[in-house]
């Protein structure tokens, strides 16, 4: 027999009735000034305990009792093992610290291992037709805004296309076509689109000293195609964004954004890893195609010099930003690392 102080509401009117709860065997009695009710304990549903907030007893017929005497109510709570586990975790600061560590670990694992692995898996299973359609639409979207028709003469284009075909024949990848575009906005650059379309800007061809330098950059882009970086990084960035917004979805969007800042750094690392992979691929392919790797180092130096002249050390052009530092890549091209890389 125990007595618990509580308030009773009949569920029909908002009037509060202070009552004493008396529990005896399997029966619950509510006794107050104008209340005298009795119920089977089994017919009552008790709300789950959350921190030390008052708990409700929902009675048959729509009435309800509320009491802040959680210590007493705990004795009658019927909670599953899982619910008890959750409540114990919430009650102890040590578990909060443990949760922080485990979450950090889980997020790191998910973003560092889980997302790339899943993206890789999905990227391999995207039907070629879908990817081709995606690539074509990306190119036509760019054509409307930042890309203009190429002004290179047909002879230059043909020579580069032949070189590209030679690289393809050696690497055995399905890629192409090689597209030429003028783009004052982007400047000297080359990039790969989904399904292996490779775009080279007139500005890059103008900057280069010879065709082999352009082919070095094209080989680097082929590396992205070979390793499926384009679809993979698209999938990775959307999955990472989804994870972060799910985790921080508790708050206003501005603070969610602030909390998501570290993942931007992770994204940058992804892309640097991808660039290294593409570099290694390019050097290897150039060797096999009989193009001296020094061409890669030369064009990188030209790109960097051009970038510095234009921006006085400010933002770098597209091909160099988010790429590994140029000296490191030149070293790779010079063969110091290239021979032992995969």
């Amino acid at each position, binding site marked *: 027999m125990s007595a618990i102080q509580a308030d009773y509401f009949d569920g029909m009117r*908002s*009037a509060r009735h202070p009552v004493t709860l008396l529990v005896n065997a399997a029966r619950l009695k509510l006794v107050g000034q104008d209340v005298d009710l009795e119920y089977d304990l089994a017919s009552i549903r008790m709300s789950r305990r959350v921190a030390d907030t008052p708990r409700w007893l929902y009675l048959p017929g729509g009435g309800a009792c509320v009491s802040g005497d959680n210590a007493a109510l705990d004795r009658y709570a019927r909670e599953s093992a899982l619910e008890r586990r959750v409540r114990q975790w919430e009650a102890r600061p040590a578990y909060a610290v443990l949760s922080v560590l485990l979450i950090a670990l889980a997020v790191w694992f998910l973003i560092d291992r889980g997302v790339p692995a899943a993206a890789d898996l999905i990227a391999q299973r995207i039907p070629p037709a879908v990817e081709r359609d995606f690539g074509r*639409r990306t190119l036509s979207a760019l054509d409307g805004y930042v890309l203009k028709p190429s002004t290179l003469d047909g002879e230059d284009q043909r020579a580069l296309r032949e070189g590209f075909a030679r690289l393809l024949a050696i690497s055995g990848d399905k890629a192409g076509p090689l597209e030429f575009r003028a783009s004052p906005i982007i400047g000297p650059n080359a990039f790969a689109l989904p399904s292996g379309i490779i775009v080279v800007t007139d500005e890059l061809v103008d900057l280069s000293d010879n065709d082999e330098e352009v082919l070095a950059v094209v080989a680097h882009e082929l590396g992205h195609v070979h390793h499926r970086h384009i679809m993979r990084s698209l999938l990775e960035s959307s999955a990472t964004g989804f994870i972060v917004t799910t985790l*921080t979805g508790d708050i206003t969007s501005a*603070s969610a954004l*602030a909390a998501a800042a570290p993942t931007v750094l992770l994204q940058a690392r992804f892309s640097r890893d991808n660039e290294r992979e593409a570099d290694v691929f390019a050097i290897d392919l150039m060797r096999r195609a009989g193009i001296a790797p020094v061409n890669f180092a030369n064009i990188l130096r030209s790109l960097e010099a051009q970038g510095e002249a234009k921006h006085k050390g400010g933002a770098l052009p597209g091909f160099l930003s988010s790429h590994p530092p140029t000296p490191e890549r030149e070293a790779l091209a010079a063969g110091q690392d290239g021979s032992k890389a995969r």
Partner: protein
Amino acid sequence: MDQPLAAPVPALPSAPPGPRVLRPVFTGNAREYFRIWIVNLFFSLVTLGIYSAWAKVRKKKYFYGSTTLDGDSFDYLGSPKAILKGRLIAAAAVIVYGFASQLYPLSRFAFLAVAFFGFPWLIARALTFNARNSAWRGLRFDFTASAAATTRFYLPRLILVGLTAGLAYPWFVARRHAFTLSSHAYGASRLHCEIPARKFYGIYLRALGIVIGSGFLLGGAAVLVLVGVGKTGIGLEGLNSPLVTFAIGAVVLYGGYGVAYAYIQARTNNLMWTMTTGPGVRFESTLGAWGMVRLYLGNILAAAVSAGLLIPWGVVRALRYRLEHFAVIIEEERVHEASPAVSRIDATGQELGDFFNVDFGI
């Protein structure tokens, strides 16, 4: 022993008792909420999101149970399974949209049409779910407008806003808040809200003034700083780079927008609650624009420097601030009665709303 509501008021015709001003009080604290939040996060993560429905209920129960009005706390009755079902449907809808709009770009228009005609239904469902699962003193709240009535309210007015190129927007906002509040009830006690549209024109015009004024002010200051640095010749070449110009521009632009946003939030909230009455009750809201700016800025900074760990602190701080500036004024003591219409409803509506980030403005 009797509570004051039920006590007979002594008949004193010469000196009627003045209105009672009730302020809701939050009795929890950030430390307690942090533990609930972090455990929620952990279990949601390891169950790949399934637990998030239970997490939401625990969070709501914590905030409702820790908030008292006139000595009695609130109760949240939403079922995690109903919420999970809603989230699964919402996730399925997003996935279908994602794939279909990539594979068949034209299907976007179909989705747009469905969204346009379907969103009033979503709003009605979400508000109904939330109201009916919120209770105080053993009585549930209610949202009394049907999905059809909500659709009849929204669609013609939105079309009008479109036809006037947005000039009717403040008028629409006034009507929308009046509609939403007037459709809410505590038990069978309906609220009533009427807001003159010109008040919202005033709010939005002043907000526009804030954006333009702060643009001039901050822009002028930025130019002065840049010129000043240039004159001193410290050799900060980087300052002339496009990145710095861009950053200064962003601060100027978003600073003004941020203040205007906080101003609109504060004034809208104040206006809609002061224009609302219920049986024997009226409301008061006294949020300040600067207070909101400080609140938002503090929360964003705290979340950024703590990698998100101070988010619960920010949530509690925001709630405290809002409650401190809100009052229920009892002009006539009444006992409220339950609505006979309230029945069960699933959570699909609300969760779709959460997922697509529709702002319900309450």
